[in-house]
């Protein structure tokens, strides 16, 4: 494991004082203050978890500490090893040993994995890029994570969570004294998370101070030494050990909240009703000479008025399956299915839309948000026909009323239909994108990781809306998730997918242990 902690030996792990300290940090944009008087201290050899809803100021705080917001544009001071520090840029803070792994990754799919990992500091020889050295460095870094990929391969082959792992591996490969991870586990499966934490503990024990931003309360017991909670730009909680969840939630929300406990029992489904979605032995292949199967002989059905969970780890083939069902898969799809009374998979997404099907895609940024367009335009993108006269002119007042209703119903904040959607927090963006799925005549709603990177408050709003859509509008809902608590709390029935196959069907009341066993292949006799 020496490789993972290269350059750390000089880090004096026994040091008691803070490695990195922020005093009275604040930041405002115009008249809007997003961070006020926050003190933060990271000691050598500890993991400081930073919690807070989206928009609480976590990312702003990290942007100050890492120099993205340069000296002079924030209030307060930064102290390193007891001496004041002034960072003019990200590279200045990296020089001081502070490494930030941002939440939004910029992995360029056409470049190789090695090139992406070391983009900002490519090894050179005689002024030319030294590809051999880059590949060797990448191998070293990846080995630490047990990632078995060829650094020379194009990054396009990586799944989103593998992309995060390569960026993390690259960050750990440089000599870091303080490592700041902005929601690294948001898109990770439990197995990947465990692997990451194992690495983080090693690094921590070598004397690095780690700042770990997260939404997941469960993982705190595993990794956090101390906890800082932010709410509305102010520090509202400091804990020197991991307290009860209720206490943390209270500090985050300012109110107690029973997570996933307020749902009425599922309505028994009538055996005489026809399923709204029926899939029989469906296989989904990647277009190409090898014909790799991403889903194999999948059979499942969803009845109107019920919420069905599709649980599995990232890479199990869930996303590929629902893309095929939605007409958004380019490769071959073989097998039978009946969707809203029509045979076969739709040939394209607007045929799916006409059948009354909508999909909330996994990747909010590239497949959901229409950048620069207003909340209103984003919300009604799928339902312009609902407001159109002669399918041509949009009835703007009617559209406006609908948008205002949905904003109020889902609690979108800020409640201003005219502002650009990308200015909202992740949770509020997701609410708007969910509203986009709810057009007139909806019969099947598929949600692919609906609460990824969404704060608890917004989650509750989203779950409430999804449940009411299923019950009141008699819509069949299929939720894909790798969040076990979400599946247990929301789904009436659960299918588990593992390595492209359906591994089992479970009724409500299944334990998390059973689900995880099925999803990791442990159930397979």
């Amino acid at each position, binding site marked *: 494991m020496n490789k993972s902690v290269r350059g750390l030996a000089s880090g004096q792990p026994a040091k008691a004082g803070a490695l990195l300290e922020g005093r009275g940090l604040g930041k405002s944009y115009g008249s809007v203050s997003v961070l006020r008087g926050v003190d933060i201290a990271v000691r050598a050899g500890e993991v400081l978890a930073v919690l807070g809803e989206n928009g609480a100021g976590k990312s702003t705080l990290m942007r100050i500490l890492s120099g993205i917001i340069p000296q002079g544009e924030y209030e307060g001071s930064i102290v390193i090893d007891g001496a004041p520090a002034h960072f003019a840029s990200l590279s200045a803070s990296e020089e001081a040993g502070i490494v930030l792994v941002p939440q939004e990754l910029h992995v360029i799919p056409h470049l190789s994995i090695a090139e992406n990992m070391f983009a900002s500091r490519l090894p050179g020889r005689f002024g030319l890029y030294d590809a051999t050295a880059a590949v060797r460095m990448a191998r070293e870094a990846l080995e630490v994570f047990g990632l078995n990929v060829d650094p020379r391969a194009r990054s396009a082959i990586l799944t989103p969570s593998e992309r995060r792992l390569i960026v993390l591996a690259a960050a750990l490969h440089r000599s870091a004294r303080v490592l700041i991870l902005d929601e690294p586990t948001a898109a990770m499966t439990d197995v990947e998370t465990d692997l990451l934490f194992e690495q983080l503990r090693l690094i921590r024990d070598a004397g690095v101070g780690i700042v770990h931003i997260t939404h997941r309360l469960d993982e705190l017991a595993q990794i956090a030494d101390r906890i800082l909670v932010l709410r509305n730009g102010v520090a509202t909680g400091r804990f020197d050990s991991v307290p009860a969840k209720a206490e943390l939630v209270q500090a985050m929300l300012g109110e107690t909240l029973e997570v996933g406990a307020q749902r009425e029992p599922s309505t028994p489904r009538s055996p005489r009703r026809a399923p709204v979605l029926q899939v029989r032995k469906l296989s989904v292949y990647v277009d190409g000479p090898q014909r790799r199967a991403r889903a194999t002989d999948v059979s499942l059905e969803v009845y109107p008025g019920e919420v069905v969970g599709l649980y599995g780890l990232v890479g199990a083939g869930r996303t590929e399956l629902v893309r095929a069902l939605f007409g958004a898969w380019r490769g071959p799809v073989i097998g039978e299915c009946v969707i809203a009374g029509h045979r076969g998979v739709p040939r394209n*997404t607007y045929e799916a839309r006409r059948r009354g099907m909508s999909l909330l895609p996994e990747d909010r940024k590239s497949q959901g948000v229409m950048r*620069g367009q207003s909340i209103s335009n984003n919300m009604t993108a*799928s339902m312009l026909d609902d407001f159109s006269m002669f399918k041509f002119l949009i009835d703007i007042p009617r559209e406006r009323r609908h948008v205002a209703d949905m904003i109020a119903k889902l609690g979108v904040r800020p409640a201003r239909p005219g502002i650009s959607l990308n200015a909202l927090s992740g949770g509020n963006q997701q609410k708007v994108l969910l509203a986009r799925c709810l057009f007139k005549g909806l019969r099947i709603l598929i949600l692919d990781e609906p609460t990824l990177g969404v704060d608890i408050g917004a989650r509750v709003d989203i779950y409430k809306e999804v449940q009411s859509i299923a019950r009141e509008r008699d819509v069949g809902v299929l939720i894909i998730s790798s969040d076990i608590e979400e599946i247990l709390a929301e789904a009436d029935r659960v299918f588990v997918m593992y390595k492209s196959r359906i591994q089992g069907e479970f009724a409500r009341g299944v334990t998390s242990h059973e689900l995880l066993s099925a999803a990791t292949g442990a159930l397979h006799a």
Partner: protein
Amino acid sequence: MKSQELSSNAAVLTQPAAATGSKVLLIELMKSRAMALLLPSVILFFYFQVMSDGVFISSANASLLLRQTAAVAVVAAGVTVLIIMGEIDLSIGSTAFLAGLVAAECQMAGCGVAASVLAAIGTGVTIGLVQGIVVTRLSVPAFIVTLAGLLLWRGLGLAWTNAAAIGPVDADFANLTEGRMSSLMTFGLITAVVLLAAWSTYARYRSAKEHGAVSFGAAAAPLGLGVAAAGGLLWFYIGGGGVPNAILWIGTIAVLLDIILTRAKFGRQTFLVGSNSEAAVYAGINVRRTVLIGFVVMGAICGIAGTMLIARVGTSTADSGINLELTAIAAATIGGVSLRGGIGSVRGALLGAFLLATIDNGMSLLGVSSYAQNVVKALILVFAVGLDGYLTRRRSTR
């Protein structure tokens, strides 16, 4: 007047809603952009006016300017639709040339004016359809397809006529843009403009009241614009020997395209596809069809522009419409249409077209060489886009 136009530009992007804080901020920003463009324009206009001994702002010169700009203004409005969609058309000049040539040949063959114009539009639509199908079905980038079109359509026309000038066309044909409107028509048009502006003002007032935020300036903007337009028409009528027919072409196409972009389903989808076409696919939008329609609309407008070019000169010549696409794209860009897609308005593009034409016209009056004119236009283009980039950056750091 220009600042009003630009700030109503902003309203298109943001939907006039009950937003207060962010809207004020946006208007502030748009104002500064408008101011930054407006101020040099005013100085330039003043300079032209003084240096040309008052010829620059005369109704005779304005009438000439309108007729000179008509074709550019029309295609700038058209290419705005494509650019917002995230596509581009480099074949505009060649398509307009071939369409105009077809109209001229029809005229020589003894066809009527209407038949000739329809033939030109038909040619444009066919070309748009062909280019659109190649772009959407074969997934060839529009840049490449229309770059090929730039060579192909003019090449076809030149090979057909051996680069000969075809003409002259009938006087009736030339009058399509060069003629003057009758008194009856002029006053009918003025009445229509004022009524439209009044109705629009009322509608805005009612909607603002519904949202509890009545702003006098925002509600009165269309009325001010309408009165200014009516005044301009009257000015032409009294001082310039009549209103040029070219206004009808520009006005009709601009109003139609503006309504389509801001009110119609197709226009909304244009913005959505241009902002994020993958997300548009997931929202169930038929992206291919939207893009195909965009190219067909562009083709039809090229057909109309070709007609206007022939009407203006009276014959089809080998260099008719040359560089038209570049002027149109420059005009749209100056008017705030983003080449990244998803942002822009017909109004902005028209403003850009007229700004470029005015500079052209003013410098010609002063006897500046056309080489130096190109230098000035280039600087304005870079200035406008650079300013846009600066303002976007300032906004995104928020």
